[in-house]
């Protein structure tokens, strides 16, 4: 066994020693806040008050029918016990009891079904509401939020935590009500019949409930721990498969198997812990239950013998115990579900309560439509929590029909600048104006209508090619889609596809090559009416010939737009009307291609390096060939 495996194995006994409060701490449940979270979870059922009441009413009827069973069974035992062989057999009263028994079970089943279905309806509706609210909020939350929180985490919250909240409302609440009814009404009936026996039964309930509740919390903890270990195991397997080539080249098989075994042993240790918690608790619960039954049996027998109760009453008490057994034991499930609902609820509410930091200011007006100029005025920008600015005093203007090139090494702040223009972040100082309006004073919707960005990381949706191109303008006519595709140099590729524009691109566009994906993203931006177009390293995966053709077509197509081309390749920006060289967040050089080459600074150096000549042996002729 490996080192990690031993560690897990030695801690196998740990949960038994873990106190409930320790378990709650590890689950991240703050007992001061938990009741409030739980109340809030329950309050989600508010809009479905009627259905909820209906479910609970059905639950009540089912519980009453269920409680009638011990009475009827006891009655029938009494009736039967008075039958003696040879007496005149009078089936009348017995038939009545039998009929009532059938009625009671049928009622119980029917109303349990109604209760279950109505509770599910409430739960599913709440699930849908939560899903929509969550989805809506995520769409509105600003970029910096999405930068901070990993998408996998958000997806987990939207799937599993949502189920956790829904599950508690659907199952937990119903079970609590059912248990309360059985104990309340049943206890009252039993107390009236025989105080001693009733107290014996009711006395065992808190003990079993305590054991079961503790088990529920511990199971939740064991499950959470197991999931953490399984996540490690999953990661080991996933990385191994993704890095299959490396693992084979290096012969890292032994090392990988060892990693796998360590992760698997650790997971197995926790899986076994979970089993142990469950087995031990269940054995205890069963033990207490049957011990209580033994007491009822002993005390009941003496009371029957002394004539205080009948055999039928005796059977009645035993039947009542049987009915109680499962609901009391389900306290474990209720606690488990409640613990889950508290931690899941907290995670969900954290997102739902967040307000987007970028939103329309009161009185914001839409930007003017049509061709407008973009002015970036002395803009500086620092990411939230960062201690240095990524952009410093950036200042430029692009008028419709002009192309601005921005070049610089990775990390110079190029993409941040693009994001500021679409107001994905707010500038720290300075201002960005579109058509002379500060974008912070305009409606967010109109800013994004006027600015189209082709992002560096292309994201396509699992839909048809046409739907992806028309993503920003879903009502675009087919002609518009084709035109945009033609400019983006997609036409020849589309023509080769069997379903043409109706071809699905696959998850994240996995059916396309990197270059094709980039071109779809370019076409997508072109299909909008935006008057500011930003291409953020949008052609890096294209070969030089296609890149040239695209730039030519773009120039004709975007005559009325202000265009910004961002790249780390000199060749991609050489045609621009003005080029900014960005380094460490500041403009270090600006001018046309020829001016910058003549300057012999950063730009010229970059150019030399990228065209693979030493600076001194660079000739203007070669660059002419590259950039027609």
């Amino acid at each position, binding site marked *: 066994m490996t080192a990690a495996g031993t560690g897990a194995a030695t801690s196998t006994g740990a949960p038994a020693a873990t106190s409930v409060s320790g378990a709650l701490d590890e689950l991240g449940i703050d007992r001061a806040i938990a009741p409030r979270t739980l109340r809030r979870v329950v309050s989600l059922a508010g809009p479905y008050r009627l259905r909820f009441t209906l479910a609970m009413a059905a639950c009540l009827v089912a519980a009453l029918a269920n409680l009638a069973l011990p009475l009827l*069974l006891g009655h029938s035992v009494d009736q039967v016990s008075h*039958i003696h062989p040879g*007496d005149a057999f009078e089936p009348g009263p*017995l038939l009545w009891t*039998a*009929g009532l028994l*059938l*009625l009671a079970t049928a009622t119980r*089943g029917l109303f349990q079904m109604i209760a*279950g*279905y109505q509770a599910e309806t409430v739960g*599913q509706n709440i699930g849908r509401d939560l*899903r*929509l609210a*969550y989805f809506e909020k*995520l769409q509105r939350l600003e970029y910096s939020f999405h930068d901070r929180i990993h998408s996998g985490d958000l997806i987990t919250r939207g*799937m*599993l935590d949502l*189920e956790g909240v829904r*599950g508690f409302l659907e199952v937990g609440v119903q079970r609590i009500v059912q248990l309360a009814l059985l104990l309340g009404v049943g206890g009252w009936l039993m107390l009236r019949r025989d105080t001693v026996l009733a107290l014996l039964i009711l006395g065992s309930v808190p003990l079993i409930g305590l054991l079961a509740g503790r088990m529920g919390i511990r199971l939740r903890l064991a499950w959470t721990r197991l999931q953490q270990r399984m996540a490690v195991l999953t990661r080991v*397997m996933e990385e*191994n*498969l993704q*890095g299959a*080539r490396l693992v*084979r*080249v*290096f*012969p*890292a*098989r*032994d090392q990988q198997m060892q990693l*796998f075994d360590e992760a698997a042993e650790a997971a197995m240790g926790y899986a076994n812990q979970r*089993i142990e918690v*469950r*087995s031990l608790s269940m054995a205890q619960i*069963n*033990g207490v239950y049957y011990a209580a039954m033994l007491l009822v049996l002993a005390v009941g*027998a003496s009371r029957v013998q002394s004539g205080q109760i009948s055999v039928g009453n*005796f*059977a009645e008490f*035993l*039947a009542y115990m049987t009915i109680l057994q499962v609901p009391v034991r389900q306290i474990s*499930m209720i606690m*488990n579900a409640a613990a889950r609902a508290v931690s899941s609820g907290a995670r969900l509410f954290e997102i739902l309560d967040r307000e987007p930091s970028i939103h329309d200011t009161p009185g914001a007006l839409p930007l003017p439509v049509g061709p407008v100029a973009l002015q970036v005025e002395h803009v500086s920008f620092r990411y939230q929590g960062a201690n240095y600015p990524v952009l410093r005093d950036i200042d430029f203007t692009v008028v419709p029909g002009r192309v601005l090139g921005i070049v610089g090494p990775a990390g110079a702040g190029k993409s941040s600048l693009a994001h500021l223009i679409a107001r*994905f972040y707010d500038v720290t100082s300075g201002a960005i104006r579109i058509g002379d309006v500060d974008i912070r004073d305009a409606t967010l919707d109109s800013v*994004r209508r006027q600015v*189209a960005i082709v992002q560096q990381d292309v994201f396509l949706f*699992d839909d048809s090619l046409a739907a992806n191109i028309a*993503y920003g303008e*879903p009502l675009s006519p087919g002609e518009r889609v084709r035109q945009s595709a033609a400019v983006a140099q997609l036409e020849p590729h589309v023509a080769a596809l069997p379903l043409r524009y109706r071809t699905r691109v696959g*998850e*994240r566009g996995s059916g396309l090559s990197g270059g094709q994906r980039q071109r779809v993203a370019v076409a997508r931006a072109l299909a909008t009416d935006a008057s500011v177009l930003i291409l953020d390293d949008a052609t890096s995966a294209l*070969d*030089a010939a296609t890149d040239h053709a695209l730039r030519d077509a773009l120039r004709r197509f975007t005559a009325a737009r202000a265009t910004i081309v961002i790249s780390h*390749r000199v060749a991609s920006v050489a045609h621009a009307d003005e080029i900014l060289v960005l380094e460490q967040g500041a403009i270090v050089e600006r001018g046309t291609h020829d001016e910058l080459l003549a300057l012999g600074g950063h730009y010229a150096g*970059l150019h030399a390096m*990228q065209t693979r*000549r030493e600076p001194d042996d660079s000739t203007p002729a070669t660059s002419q*060939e590259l950039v027609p």
Partner: protein
Amino acid sequence: MTTLLSRDADAELEREDEAARTALLSEREQIFGRFESGLFGRLKPFVRPHRTLLLAAIVAILCFVAAQLAIPLLIRATVDSITGKAGSYPLAWVFAAFALLVLLNSLANYWSDMTASRLAQRIIFDLRRAMFAHLQLVSQGAMDGSHVGRIMSRLQGDVNAVQEFFETSVTAVGDFVLLLGIVIALFLLEWRLALLTLLLAPMLLAVRALWLPRARAAFTGARDSSSIVNGALAENINGVRVVQGMRREKLNLEDFDRKATANRDAQLRAAWSAQVLVPAVDIATGLAMVIVTLGGGWLLWQGRIDIGVVVAFIFYVQRFFDPVRTLSQQYTMAQRAATSARRIFEVIDVPLEIMEKPGAPALRGDPPTVEFRDVRFGYQRGRPILDGFNLTVHAGETLAIVGPTGSGKSSVAALACRLYDVWDGAVLVGGQDLRDVSRQSIGRKLLMVLQEPFLFTGTIADNIRFASNATRAQIVAAAKAVQADAFITALPQGYDTPLDQRGQNLSVGQRQLISFARALVADPAILILDEATASIDSVAEARIQQALRVLLKGRTAILIAHRLATVRDADRIIVLQDGAILEQGSPIELLASGGLYAGLYRHNFESFDEAG
């Protein structure tokens, strides 16, 4: 009467989690496949090592069931005794027996769950390990053709489905034995009454037969709609930047609303299907009680039984029909598990194309030469990429292979590492045929640095050490040699900086430098670089080029590149086109010859692909 059922109430909760996870992972497909008994045969080797545990589990389950069955009998004995029936046992004896039974019941409960669930757990982990271990041996060719997500869905989703089945099987077997036990007990108590009561079973089975096909459709629909709605959520989260940039919020919300509503409705249909069985089972239970009451009364009147039997019967039938319900669930689960098991064995059955000869010696790699002798190779049958390919790389030589995409240069690199086997001919390293040496020994002498630097979760030091036993000093020395030390020590935790998500917190250039250090630590005699500088921007590349020089010193090297700049330092360049050597010679010779290389170089193209 109690059954083993309810202990799984908590598991139900967790199964929902599991189902949600699985839904995300597994491709949608026909879940209710046909049940194959042959699969159980395949599982045998996994169960066999744990025979003792299995036996213990069976014994424990039998004890538990016996204890459960005995309880109503003791209640009968109590009733018999207090009603003063002739021949009844003294009450004290009955209670003593009951006390013993309570103890046995608890112990058996504990042991059956511990042994059976652990057994299931062990088998599942073994199954997963077998699949993972097999995947390590499968050739790169087989890996190329399969999507990582798909394999992962087998390693996780399918393994989980089988686990779910196993875990519930434990309960189901208990239920089944209990059911059988109840039937036997009923017949022993009073066969006429038992017969009457059991007449209800076929009725319930008929209801179930009617119910199953419709429920199946509803359950499949619910699973599908749930994966659709979760898929839409995931896609929107991942693409949120585009969504906002393209102002699609409103439209996407409407679309999501439709999907979430459809999901709600599908879930409710499934819930309905599950709920209709509740009254069916309850009515059957009610009818059974009617039979016991009336039949019992009649038999009592006839003097054939006494009151104790009636009470025992009542306790038996109260929960008799519940197992019928859970066994139906078990059936659908079994079918899902069968499909999953088949998919698991599909992975285990992937043939190993690259086999190691028994007792194959280690690769000596001395002298460090690589020779391709009449090699024929391709990825698709009948379409060779290399055909009659001959090439010798001499000891200490740096050979560059350039050529456009698809020319076969990456295949040359892959064959030298025996990621694939040649169709014909041979690849020899230091005179040894790669097929005659042990696979594990190849990487110690001959190493390839890949185009995409792949880093694992762990610290930087872990990644440089990787499969070697390098000391900290060796790791630092390697990092210094490739000029990675400066940026590593600038990180807050230096060499112990954990890498997030496979090193996404580093730039591509930095990742590649780490992968160079990793290769340097492994210290192979022969090094192959497969486009190792292709995805790095030109600023970072200058540094990489320097690192490269350190890396190649004193080794035999093959550089695969499509960028011309990368290969200027090579001793010899080979220009490959369509699997054939078009021209070769030193960089100066090639420039002088005026061939393809010279032409591209003169026209200042960065790479071969631009020429196309």
